[in-house]
């Protein structure tokens, strides 16, 4: 292998810490399910290795991530290794008439789960949940009846999910306060169902069904059941309960975990970044590194106090949320004097009168919403940046890159550490550039949006000519998400990125709404074989699968 023939001695401090290296080498397939026959098989592999096959299945027709990976040997007696990465679909907020394609998502994901469990059973070797967004885990809610039989030997989540981690808790607390304040605004009587809150409302859908996000409703019930209006946090709690505490791994960047039949394959953890300094630093605009987690405590406090003022229209707001003392206050909201009541105030106050005569586009009624929108966007970006990013290594050492929804900050942090090149302690390390250059399949980040694929330090470094890509996206659904500030809906896939992806992969891209014939043609001669699942009612295959067969037995 190239790595071994050309060992690159890197004067990297990290390589000089054997103790840390060995602690990273966590065997993950705990429990007794690795049968004796598998172990025996693995032992004999060295003399006469069995050829192995890896299949990556993406469920189609949904804007959301739902991936299933299995590793099997050509020896049929050996049970394949099964890994589920995320299972979710975008929530429909707004009427079915306005978002007809989005409305189909729920049915599609239930059909997908039914298909998956029908074909492979409900036991998984590893379930990976990348981050707490609805479009990555709502499948567990929608198909909770089917998932009732779920058995998982291991749950992989990011370190940010660890409740015993002070850093993770501080971050979680901030996020939860922000989400609570923002939902209070969205649900407040004066702003409920108004056009102007659309941007915030659309972003809040990623945390759970409306009305249940900030209030704590929809958590796991005492009997361990998941309710239909569970929040994202509740889903992860439920999965943790199912897996058991000892089988839940909190993955940190730089670690290597094992997967595949007999735990022979390696999974490198690239993100989410963990940098105490970055998280605690007060001033994000300070010199040096770019901030990964942007939302500041002050921003959260500001929106919380806005929520306190606006969540209750009739009653006088609490004094502590008002800047001026009672004698100076005159309650006002747009249109208060419009209906002809209290004419006396209107005529006696020239300023209010002047203000009400200003054309609506020049008034400042909604200007303050900007801070709520900007916080909602920051929190959304923050959660995306907590994405667990995995580089799954194949038997021939090529890489499948699952970037979840990692945004720029997460991508940039991948080069903050090197990665153990081998299972032997204290050997050489791999740089992120090496891993990227070996990537032959890229699960495109954040449904191919504009800011979730790094250019120079990312896609341009995936130089393997065999590179293929998967995009979990239905473009129609993305374009249905219209708001005032985005009248054309979400730009997914982002044009420039899509163009570059096509160039780099020579068109070898499968997409959630891709054309079967086009994709099949593009994949001719590819390292992956492409196949499709059964047609749904709309003649649209339920899934697409890329199959990789081991070429080299030398491993």
């Amino acid at each position, binding site marked *: 292998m190239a790595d071994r023939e050309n060992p690159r001695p890197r004067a990297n401090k990290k390589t000089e810490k054997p103790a840390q290296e060995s602690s990273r080498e966590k065997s993950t397939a705990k429990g007794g399910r690795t049968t004796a026959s598998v172990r025996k098989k693995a032992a004999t592999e060295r003399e006469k290795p069995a050829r192995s096959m890896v299949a990556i299945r993406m469920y189609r027709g949904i804007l959301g991530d739902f991936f299933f990976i299995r590793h099997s040997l050509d020896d049929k007696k050996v049970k394949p290794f099964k890994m589920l990465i995320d299972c979710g679909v975008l929530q429909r907020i707004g009427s079915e008439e306005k978002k007809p394609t989005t409305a189909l998502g729920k049915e599609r994901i239930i059909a997908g789960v039914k298909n998956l469990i029908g074909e492979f059973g409900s036991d998984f070797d590893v379930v990976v949940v990348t981050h707490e967004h609805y479009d990555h885990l709502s499948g567990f809610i929608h198909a909770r009846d089917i998932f009732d039989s779920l058995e998982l030997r291991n749950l992989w989540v990011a370190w940010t999910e660890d409740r015993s981690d002070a850093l993770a808790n501080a971050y979680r607390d901030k996020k939860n306060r922000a989400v609570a304040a923002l939902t209070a605004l969205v649900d407040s009587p004066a702003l409920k169902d108004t056009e102007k809150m659309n941007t915030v409302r659309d972003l809040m859908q990623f945390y759970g069904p409306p009305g249940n996000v900030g209030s704590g409703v929809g958590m796991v019930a005492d009997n361990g059941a998941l309710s239909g209006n569970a929040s994202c946090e509740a889903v992860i709690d439920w999965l943790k309960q199912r897996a058991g505490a000892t089988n839940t791994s909190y993955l940190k960047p730089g670690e290597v975990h094992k997967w595949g039949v007999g735990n022979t394959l390696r999974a490198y953890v690239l993100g989410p970044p963990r940098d105490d300094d970055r998280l605690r630093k007060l001033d994000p605009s300070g010199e040096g590194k770019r901030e990964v987690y942007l939302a500041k405590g002050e921003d959260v*406090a500001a929106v919380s106090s806005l929520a306190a003022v606006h969540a209750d229209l009739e009653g006088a707001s609490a004094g502590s949320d008002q800047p001026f003392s009672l004698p*100076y*206050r005159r309650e*006002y*909201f747009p249109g208060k004097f419009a209906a002809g009541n209290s004419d006396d105030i209107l005529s006696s106050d020239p300023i*209010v009168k002047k203000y009400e005569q200003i054309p609506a586009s020049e008034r400042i009624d909604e200007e303050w919403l900007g801070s709520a929108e900007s916080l909602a966007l*920051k929190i959304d970006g923050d959660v995306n940046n907590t994405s667990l990013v995995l580089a799954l290594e194949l038997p021939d050492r090529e890489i499948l890159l699952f970037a979840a929804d990692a945004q720029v900050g997460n991508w940039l942090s991948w080069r903050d550490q090197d990665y153990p090149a081998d299972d032997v302690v204290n050997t050489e390390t791999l740089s992120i550039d090496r891993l990227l250059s070996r990537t032959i399949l890229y699960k495109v980040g954040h449904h191919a949006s504009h*800011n*979730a694929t790094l250019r120079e330090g990312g896609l341009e470094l995936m130089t393997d000519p065999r590179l293929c890509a998967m995009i979990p996206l239905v473009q129609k659904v993305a374009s249905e998400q219209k708001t005032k500030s985005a009248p054309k809906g979400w730009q997914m896939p982002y044009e*420039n990125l899509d163009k570059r992806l096509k160039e780099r992969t020579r068109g070898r891209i499968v997409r959630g709404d891709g054309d079967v014939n086009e994709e099949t043609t593009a994949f001719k001669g590819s390292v992956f074989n492409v196949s499709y699942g059964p047609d749904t009612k709309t003649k649209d295959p339920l899934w697409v699968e890329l199959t990789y067969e081991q070429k080299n037995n030398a491993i």
Partner: protein
Amino acid sequence: MKYPPPSTRRLRVYAFDPQSAIMLGTVGYAYATIDLPWEQVWEQPLERGPVNEYFEVIDIDPASKQFYDAVDLNDKYLLAQNGLAPSEGNPQFHQQMVFAVAMKVVRLFERALGRKILWAPVWNRETGTYEAVKRLRIYPHAIREANAYYSFDKHALLFGYFRSQNLFAGASWIFTALSHDIIAHETTHAVLDGLHRRYKEATSPDSRAFHEAFADIVALFSHFTLTEAVYAHIQEKGGDLDSESLLSGLARQFAAGTSGHGALRQYIDKQPDPELLANTLECHDRGAILVAAVFDAFLQIYKTRTDDLLRIGKVERGQGKRLDSDLARRLTDEATKTAEHVLRMCIRAMDYLPPVDVRFGEFLRAIITADADLVPEDTRNYRIAFSEAFLRRGITAGNCLSTSPESLLWDSPEQLLGQDDLSKDFRDLNLSLEPQYDRDAIIHQAEELRKQVWRWLVLPDKKDIAIDLQWEKALGVYFALRENAPKSIAQAEGFPKVEVHSVRVTRRAGPDGQDLRQLVIEVTQRRRGYFDPEQQKKADRGEPVGREDFNFRGGATLIIDLRDRHLRFVIRKRIDDPERLNEQRAYLQQPGGAAFTYIPAATGAAAREPFAMAHRGE
């Protein structure tokens, strides 16, 4: 018995911000009184709000669902005590302070420019014309966040307030409407937009940065009108001004309340790095380099002006020895006078800038030329101080022969075209230039002049067609679609559109009684710009291509001496300059100089409100 009106209206304000009023070290000069000229008979009287001819303060607070009663500055009790006493807890004082500081900035500009300022007109989509904006609105409590901005869409200044978690700020609520620096900064954005409304377009790394820098220059130098603060500082530092202090930093309370830092921006840099400019692209940071250059020039001039005083007083500068109070008083005089001169030089330069796509180096040329026009003999070497301070920060003026002040002067028509046939042509132009006083009449006159000049300049000359070609060359625009003209120039009815942007008459008086009467004409033209050079070529040939990716503008500023109707300077940015087009294209495609991902241009709030103190989402 009828009394004559007083000459000034005096209003109390915080000299810096409320933070300095709660610290023993600064409380002695934490308050100031602003003298505004009393309304003239032809001006509209000051109303509750306050509302006058320039501003209307509207204290509506939608974020907190409140409005606050408007202050009546004509109330006899308030008149008797120079307005309300400074107070954070009284919203009416906030109205008084934003109004007073904003008016102070307006008067500063009017005095330096020698004419009344006008706000940027708004484009009316329905009628397809620009409409004059008589009054700028001021909202002292517009948003609840650590921000403030000039919004040209709403032709308003919006001030935010927020609750700070930071003890050093000295208050739980911080109001940007109580920060002298922030008010001056945002008001300057509005004034500059009124002077050059194309400068808000991002055309190069310098364009937005220039807006920020200029707003900071005005805020910074107005500190030096506060004689008590300057006196205290000079006493403390033994006559030295070049150490970090309340005077050299901006928006201290705002900074303490947001980041815990000492000042939002600090303008003392003793070891300027000429390489820094090339690597700094964020607009506030890049602008800071320009401000530091101007501040450096100020410090140099102050030094040369006070060396003799210190020798007479037998003290060495910066020894920290307590100075004789007479000497400190004289040094303070010199410092405030120097600051006044430097600021006035910067403001006058505004008329000597190109109408589009301004660069830092051009600002330097404008300062030098404007000053040389008014003060021919630079006995105190002000101009050298400027060119040297700029050069030390890597700010140079393109293709000038050297950085000596003479070679930095703008080109005369003879230098540009080899001969000047253009001055003669002015005799055809009969403008009605009677001075107007009433603000409505001034607005009306400005519009009439604009139309007159447009007709004279753009319509073909009946007597001499050759002169039109000369004008085209001088202005860097096209009046007709000639063979070599890029066909991507915006057209109307088969002719390239030409905009006579503004025609202004200025009257300035120099220190030695010089009287300068000038006419400043700005002409611009728009051309469709494409990111793809191939598409650009097609569009330039007149072949149909899609919608443009950006606006590329060219044009010129003409400066005409009204005493002899002589065309003195032509400051030109050609519409067919391929190099400048390439630069703008490259800049727009690489926002912030680093295309991290695949996004081509700034979107969202930063794009909507470019003049924010702090950009949301950054």
